[in-house]
């Protein structure tokens, strides 16, 4: 009996809703993002690989795996090789905490919200290492910018998550989801709308999307921190970026949009929850793609100033508002 349970757990980790599902869904999200972005710009976007080009990110991945993998002479060989792997592993690991097919993630422990926040911070650090280890001038500038941007977005990101934790009085993702499902019977976005907006803006910076794609600004510093990466390593980085997209939108769903919960037929919850999860993350991705097609790229000083001047005060105000609501006994 125990072996069967163990087998199911392993299958959960590897197949669904673990690594394979997340990777496939990451590619799907990349396709969705690219397609939407293209349509906003009156372009066609990915078209030929698979129906409507849906397999394009997968094809890109395979193509990159087959490409020559160059390690520059000036690079730190160990760091240069390890960082892409580590980035991929870390982004896969965070996804284990995201509730996809049930109200809790595959892994769930008390205080896992803090753990997830901490690991998501490691993304930024790893990017800095990636640029630093490759020993290229453009990478160094990209690394500096990543560091600066990191200082800018990480705090509002954390503050917006904290206001959710305060409102639900819990640091456990499963409790936050069940609070929305059972106690509040509403998604938390109704209570903390400002935190949701701040979360979205900071996650644009976290994902390095326009208008915050400063660390890899193509026209300025070529590709920034990833300029020296090629072949398999670049493929891993790109896959990690896709997984980060799943993570950011999945966490947004769990924290603000009531998790994967939705109307479903009893007994078939995992299927329906997955469908609701996909619909809700697509909505989040739709907003993110929309935002990134609307703006020009900010300069790094403008990014830092903007985040500290506007987002952090609003995040603090949101926390105060939550405190007030708790004090009044509304939530």
């Amino acid at each position: 009996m125990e072996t069967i349970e163990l087998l199911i757990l392993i299958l959960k980790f590897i197949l669904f809703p673990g690594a394979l599902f997340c990777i496939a869904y990451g590619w799907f999200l990349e396709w969705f993002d690219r397609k939407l972005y293209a349509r906003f710009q009156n372009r066609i976007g990915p078209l030929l690989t698979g129906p409507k080009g849906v397999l394009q990110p997968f094809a890109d991945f395979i193509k990159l795996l087959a490409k020559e993998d160059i390690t520059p002479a000036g690079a730190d060989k160990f760091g240069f090789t390890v960082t892409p792997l580590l980035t991929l592993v870390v982004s896969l690991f965070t996804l284990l905490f995201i509730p996809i097919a049930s109200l809790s993630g595959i892994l769930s422990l008390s205080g896992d919200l803090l753990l997830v926040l901490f690991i998501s911070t490691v993304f930024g650090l790893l990017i800095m290492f990636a640029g630093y280890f490759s020993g290229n001038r453009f990478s160094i500038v990209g690394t500096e910018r990543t560091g600066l941007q990191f200082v800018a977005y990480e705090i509002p990101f954390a503050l917006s998550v904290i206001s959710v934790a305060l409102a639900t009085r819990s640091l456990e993702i499963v409790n936050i989801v069940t609070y929305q499902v059972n106690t509040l019977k509403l998604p938390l976005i109704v209570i903390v709308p400002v935190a949701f907006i701040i979360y979205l803006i900071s996650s644009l910076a976290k994902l390095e999307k326009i208008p915050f794609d400063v660390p890899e600004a193509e026209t300025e510093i070529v590709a920034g921190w990833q300029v020296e990466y090629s072949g398999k390593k670049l493929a891993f980085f790109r896959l990690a970026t896709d997984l980060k997209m799943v993570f950011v939108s999945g966490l947004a769903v769990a924290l603000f949009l009531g998790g994967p919960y939705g109307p479903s037929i009893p007994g078939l919850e995992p299927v329906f929850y997955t469908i609701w999860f996909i619909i809700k993350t697509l909505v989040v991705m739709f907003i993110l793609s929309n935002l990134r097609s609307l703006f020009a790229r900010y300069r790094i000083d403008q990014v830092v100033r903007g985040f500290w001047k506007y987002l952090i005060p609003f995040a603090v105000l949101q926390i105060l508002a939550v405190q007030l609501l708790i004090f009044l006994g509304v939530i």
Partner: protein
Amino acid sequence: MLEEEVEEKRVFKIPVGPQHPALKEFENFTFTVDGEKVIDVDFRIGYTHRGIEKLAESKTYIQNLYLCERICGICSAAHQGCYAQTVEELAGITAPPRGVYIRTLIWELERIHSHLLWLGVAAHEIGFDTLFMLIWRDREVVMSLLEMISGNRVNYAMSTVGGVRRDISDELKHKILKGLDVLEERTKYYKEVCMKEQTILARAANVGILSKEKTLKLNAVGPTARASGVDVDIRRDDPYGAYDEVPFEVIVYDTCDVLARILVRVDETIQSILMSRWILENLPSGEIRTKFARKIAENEVLGRVEAPRGELLYYIKSNGTDKPERLKVRTPTLANLLPVAEMLKGGYIADIPIVLAGIDPCFACMDRALFIDENSEKTWVWDKEQLRIYSIKWYKEHGKEVVRERWKQ
């Protein structure tokens, strides 16, 4: 001493080009940067030297029409038209009015397409890809108009010595007028976008400042000069073609930054649309070209036009045969190169692409053999090495004070 060493380590050099995503052509700029700040700029030109001027000496006047057109892909009509009218003056013939009008129409349509292209590139440089895509979509309208008139999208081959090669029928005229309406509406919309969109303002306003004094001193031309408050336009100052008859305004802004350069070009596009419409409505009837004797007696002429990027200068010397003895071209980008180095100093790395793009550079058409500087009515000839030495010397003398001034603001 220790402080100096630390300084030394913080400062390092970033090469931009010969291959770089921000540059669509080959050119090398070396930026000395301290973190995100640009301290010094050095540039090296000549990567696309094609020996066109020498080649022109071995071709006839008619063959050279198509060679000159290929100096620049974007302002091909300006090059060809300028060459054609300079040869006309050399030979002492005048093109018939209808021919001149059609030539002017092509120039203005080309200005529309060039400015829209630039606007798209500028949007791309500041990371606003949506605007880039939409502008380039609308630019297709004017591209198809040019294709309808000339049969080509890029090198129109419309001008010839003594007039133009194709006529415009009434049916075509109506199509062009319709296309111009679309363009006018869209361009006005883009002007509004450029003036109101906060991210564009954040990246363009007060960036890449070039003061009026420096503009005059460093001899900037075209929209770059007009954005710094210098009121120059060859079309008005030294009318050629049909410009003495066509009504138009010279657009001048005096904020001296990238935003001014954007707005000058948007407004000029609107002016060009109005001018094209006026030309079509007042198109004189008659012949489109006169005959031209193949051999030209000994003579020399300096012709200039206002290309989309600024003053374009052609010097042609004839020697009694059917081939020119000397053909010399000075394109606007060369004149704008020293000013752009001036604009870049003291800025941020992030501003390099948009400031560089701000002069609408066309390096391929700039790279020929020599450099003629027309400063304060004196004319002398420099090769690119001397130019480089000059720029280095100039920075050594003035670099620090310019940076200091910039940081005071």
